């Protein structure tokens, strides 16, 4: 395909996507105007609340809702990623270690993370620590399992080559094993990011005094349906934004795969 043909195709794709969004909004608008329900506000009302309540009041929004939520989410996500990758590489490189700990991993992984919330409330209270730990524990297994899988499926010749050039053991880990396993590690990170958003919201619905989840819960308690819907829209945008950011980083680091 020539470059201009590819560009034209891209424009066509984006055009179609926009059309679909507009169509969905239109259906939503017509439907909500017709039923005129308190529970289903029109898109105009919701979007103007997003604009007035969130964007125009940015400093409050940021300090009370977005910043606390993002901090919890990213702290949990990075904490889990860091340890899951280290532990995953260790398990992936050692058959024996894997044989010993894998049953435990699969058991822990089978517990739905939200079910751990009551336990963490008792152990860690209602503060930020509890939320960060909940998120970290919940996103740990997918990163860990993908890292193990990625490390195990590395071609042995990569390592023989490194050994033939007397690359030290540590450098083999950081410069051969990690990049070779990176595609699978990123697959794990992508799954984990969605889980992190879910756990962040859940933890904020149960015990919080700020955050996006807290604001949604408040709107519900005060029966402000428009605010509630606006909160959902913001949450969606936040999740999509984070995913896009991760995809961007992944594309950059795994650039060689498209070569």
């Amino acid at each position, binding site marked *: 395909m020539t470059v201009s043909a590819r560009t034209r195709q891209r424009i066509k794709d984006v055009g179609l996507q926009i059309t679909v969004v507009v169509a969905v909004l239109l259906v939503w608008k017509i439907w909500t105007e017709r039923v005129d329900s308190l529970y289903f506000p029109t898109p105009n009302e919701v979007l103007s609340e997003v604009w007035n309540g969130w964007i125009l009041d940015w400093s409050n929004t940021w300090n009370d809702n977005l910043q606390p939520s993002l901090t919890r989410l990213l702290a949990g996500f990075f904490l889990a990623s860091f340890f899951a990758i280290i532990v995953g590489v260790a398990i992936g490189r050692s058959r024996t270690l894997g044989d010993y700990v894998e049953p435990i991993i699969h058991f822990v992984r089978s517990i739905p993370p939200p079910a751990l919330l009551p336990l963490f409330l008792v152990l860690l209270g209602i503060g930020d620590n509890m939320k960060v730990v909940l998120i970290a524990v919940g996103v740990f297994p997918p990163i860990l399992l993908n890292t193990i899988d990625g490390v195990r499926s590395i071609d042995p010749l990569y390592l*023989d*080559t490194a*050994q*033939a050039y*007397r*690359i030290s053991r540590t450098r083999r880990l950081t410069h051969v094993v990690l990049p070779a396993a*990176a595609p699978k590690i990123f697959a794990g990170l992508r799954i984990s990011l969605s889980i992190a958003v879910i756990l962040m919201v859940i933890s904020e619905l149960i015990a919080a005094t700020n955050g996006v989840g807290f604001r949604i819960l408040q709107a519900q308690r005060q029966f402000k349906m428009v605010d509630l819907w606006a909160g959902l829209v913001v949450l969606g945008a936040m999740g999509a934004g984070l995913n896009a950011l991760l995809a961007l980083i992944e594309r950059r680091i795994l650039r060689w795969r498209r*070569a």
Partner: protein
Amino acid sequence: MSTDSTSNESGPRQSLAAADLHHVYGKGTTEEHHALGGITFSVDQGEFVAIVGPSGCGKTTLLRCLSGLMAPTSGTVTLEGTAVDSVPKDLTLVFQDYRRSLYPWLRVDANVEFPLKHSGIDKPERVERVRQALDDVGLTGHASKYPGQLSGGMQQRVSIARALAYRPHLLLMDEPFASVDAQTRSSLEDVLLDVWQRRNKTVLFVTHDIDESVYLADRVVVLSNAPSHVLAEITIDIPRPRDQIETKATAEFVELRAEVARLIRNAGTRDHPPGEGEA
């Protein structure tokens, strides 16, 4: 066959020597396989030696033992007089499977630079070595591509360049041209002969291709079936520079290749069915 070339003080200095190498896989199990059955030979500095043998004779096992990637069950390997127990710094390997031996996440120049970066050579020196090595194998202008963007033959050139830039005294090559097409193969053979002569290397080249061994080498070491030992060492005194078409048409070449072929055929009809094991 000479087994004691160390005492030969007036001749060229010895590079690699293998003495009575044995290797048994899965010793004591029902899967026990005696791959190497007492291999003894040596390579002099500056020499180009080819090892040929019937398929499944343990050529790859031999190379792994010679390079120090694997310890033989018994026997010794010495490089320039020092016993080999892990991969020595004056030796490196070029593998058959370039697709899995180059790192796909590094560009061509970074692949070539990779071993240098980790052996404490400073940046300007590294850059110069990479440039020269890529130039030697005819890849100038492809430095910033990823291996995935190159053809098989070009990828194998990259792995040869990587070995050259590392500047080992001895280059071990494990059927390096076995997975490229015939034309690419001829041109890679000539690239190799060219850099071997210009850069004054010692090469030990393992192949299953008789023509290739006779065309490239000063000496061909013929292995028997597993458990393999050295059947014969044939000196190839065809003058250099050699030419893919002219040399291969000479009576000398035809005779030598027939001699090697006969040795291998007889080896192949001995105790094991041929065509087993090695892919």
